[in-house]
């Protein structure tokens, strides 16, 4: 049997398919009852209305079933609230490689951080501008590079 933690951690985000739920920071805990062997996975949503949550729960259950844990339970925790600071360095590198500019660190104590210069994930230029605060998914904003003219997604700091 595959370690349940490894099986759950390998599940990819259904809307940003280059990053795993572990790298995105939404996998909070994987616990196994030592007596019964039953696995309980705890995840947290990026945004309250994130429509990918049902797919993520199903994908986790499927991955755990394949790893020999057919009766795994997936729970959802809302506190503490997810922050983009929980995205791992490896996750940030994968986002950038996929053309999605990763978020800047969130300063403690502020709700919405100051937007620092967002670098174009294609050419690296800092000459970029926000087109819209809201993008193709709840967690992304739409930006444009003034140097190479390419539009790109930016995972907004939260």
């Amino acid at each position: 049997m595959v370690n349940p933690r490894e099986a759950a951690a390998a599940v990819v985000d259904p809307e940003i398919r280059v990053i795993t739920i572990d790298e995105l920071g939404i996998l909070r805990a994987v616990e196994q009852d030592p007596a019964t062997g039953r696995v309980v996975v705890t995840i947290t949503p990026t945004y309250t209305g994130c429509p990918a949550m049902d797919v993520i729960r199903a994908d986790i259950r499927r991955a755990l079933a394949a790893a020999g844990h057919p009766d795994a339970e997936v729970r959802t925790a809302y506190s503490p609230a997810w922050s983009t600071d929980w995205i791992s360095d490896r996750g940030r590198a994968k986002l950038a490689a996929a053309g999605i500019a990763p978020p800047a660190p969130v300063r403690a104590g502020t709700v919405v951080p100051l937007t620092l210069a967002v670098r174009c994930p294609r050419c690296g230029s800092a000459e970029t501008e926000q087109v819209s605060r809201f993008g193709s998914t709840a967690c992304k904003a739409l930006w444009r590079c003034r140097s190479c003219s390419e539009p790109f997604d930016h995972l907004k700091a939260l």
Partner: protein
Amino acid sequence: MTASFDFVLSLGDDALIAAQRLGEWTSRAPEMEEDIALANIALDQLGAARLLLTYAGELEGAGRDEDALAYLRDDREFRNCLLVELPNGDFAVTMAKLFFLSAYQLPLYTALAGCSDERLAAIGAKARKESAYHLDHSALWVKRLGDGTDESHRRMQAAIDEVWPYTHELFAADPAAPVDPATLRAEFDATVSAVFDEATLARPAAGWTPGGGRDGVHTEHLSFLLAEMQVLHRAHPGAKW
């Protein structure tokens, strides 16, 4: 201290009805980016509504889940403020409504994040981050339209004049609640005054103060909204796709 069913229901209904109204803009917004923005904000409101209505159902203890509360209540049983049920009007009216709603929800959710009801505190801590984006987005539009052309200024001023009376209901005192809405008024006033100044808009004069939403007494607009929102579930109970 645990919050009351009525209080949590009123917060959930505000978010649910706001989501339904904002969703009406989908595919009809003035530009593609705004279409996506309004749909995203509607989705955030719906996400908060689901958490709040689920919790309200548990507090009530009568076996009603989020779907039963959203789809199987009539207008007199809804506890949302009148502000969210008002029609969208033109784009300026929609932005005025969203601006006032988020200028209220942000301090509300922030205060709830520190309250003694753990479930509400968790929901508040999550939702306030999203509200901050809603406030930012709507405030930008109020400034852009208010300090824009003569026509955009005229319509933005008309919009805030029209919607302003409905903001008073948001701050009706409720000392038994985990956060008394009356305590949020000062922050709301400071937020809107700063934006009005930058937008070259005049603060509406004090006038009539419609209310009743928290007691289930609504405008006729809510009934039409509910008819559209609930028809499928009522015609085909438990339908899934």
